[in-house]
């Protein structure tokens, strides 16, 4: 019975292979897939780093002496930035899982390393002063000034 099954499997598969019903995907398909995967991963990590960087900049800018009403922060802070940053990080981790080195080593440590690197890079980027430059000139000025109007209002008009 087992030999009959074996013959069936072999004959059915080879019939499809030899008739051309089943074809090998070309090598460029896999090369392109790898390139897109690497580029995508790099893009996701870069995007997450940039957004975390903006988040740190906005928190720093409005946190003089730490005096900040929670309600104003929740009302005015563009929450889509941290949400998108987390989303990009999660996608990056999912893409990362497809690589062999992630299961051969401690995956939790790799994820921890990735998240730490993103925050550290974002922090260093913020320290570099580039954020102050980008917030006053250039195409990203609008992004940096999100919520700024609402944040200034309680600062000037709030009576304590």
């Amino acid at each position: 019975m087992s030999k009959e099954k074996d013959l069936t499997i072999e004959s059915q598969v080879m019939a499809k292979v030899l008739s051309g019903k089943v074809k090998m995907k070309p090598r460029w398909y896999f090369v392109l897939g790898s390139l897109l995967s690497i580029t995508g991963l790099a893009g996701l990590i870069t995007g997450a780093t940039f957004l975390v960087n903006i988040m740190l900049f906005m928190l720093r800018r409005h946190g003089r002496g730490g005096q900040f009403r929670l309600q104003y922060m929740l009302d005015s802070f563009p929450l889509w930035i941290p949400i998108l940053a987390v989303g990009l990080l999660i996608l990056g981790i999912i893409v990362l899982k497809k690589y062999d080195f992630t299961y051969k080593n401690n995956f939790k440590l790799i994820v921890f390393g990735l998240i730490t690197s993103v925050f550290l890079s974002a922090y260093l980027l913020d320290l570099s002063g580039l954020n102050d430059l980008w917030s006053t000139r250039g195409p990203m000025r609008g992004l940096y000034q999100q919520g700024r109007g609402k944040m200034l209002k309680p600062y000037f008009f709030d009576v304590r």
Partner: protein
Amino acid sequence: MENIEVVTDEELVLQVIQNNKELYAKLIERYQGKLMRYASYLLDDPDKATDVVQEAFIKAYINLKSFDTTKKFSSWLYRIAHNEAINIVEKTKKVIALDPESELDGGINVEDDFVKQELITHAQECLNQMAIMYREPLSLYYLDDKSYDEISDILRIPIGTVGTRINRAKSLMKKLCLKKKI
């Protein structure tokens, strides 16, 4: 013919890729029995196991150019069969998964020979009662003679985890087989 018998799987793959499609039959011949056994341990349904193995060979052929010939072909092929089998297990979810934590007893000293003998004799009965997480590495290690390294590549889990799961599976198996005998 004699020449083909000594050619490694990886060399055969290279020849198949270089437009020698007929040689793929040789690869099927080498692995269909092993994959059928492996799929049977996972699925306990000969027809589904046949479908899984057939589908695995077809997918392997379609993606043959993605295979890295510096690695082991058998691990790659088993991985494809594993994915196919898991898809069916997920769909049917017939397995009664025992709570592994409640069954564990770290104090049991399980002999390897006993495990292998019990597996060979009562393979399907013992394995069916086990969660797939333990069934797979156990059957790959004892019935397919795969190394920890190969099992790690097939299941995409760290080598340490392979060892842990095999040890737990051995403990589970002893309890299950003892229960059956009583």
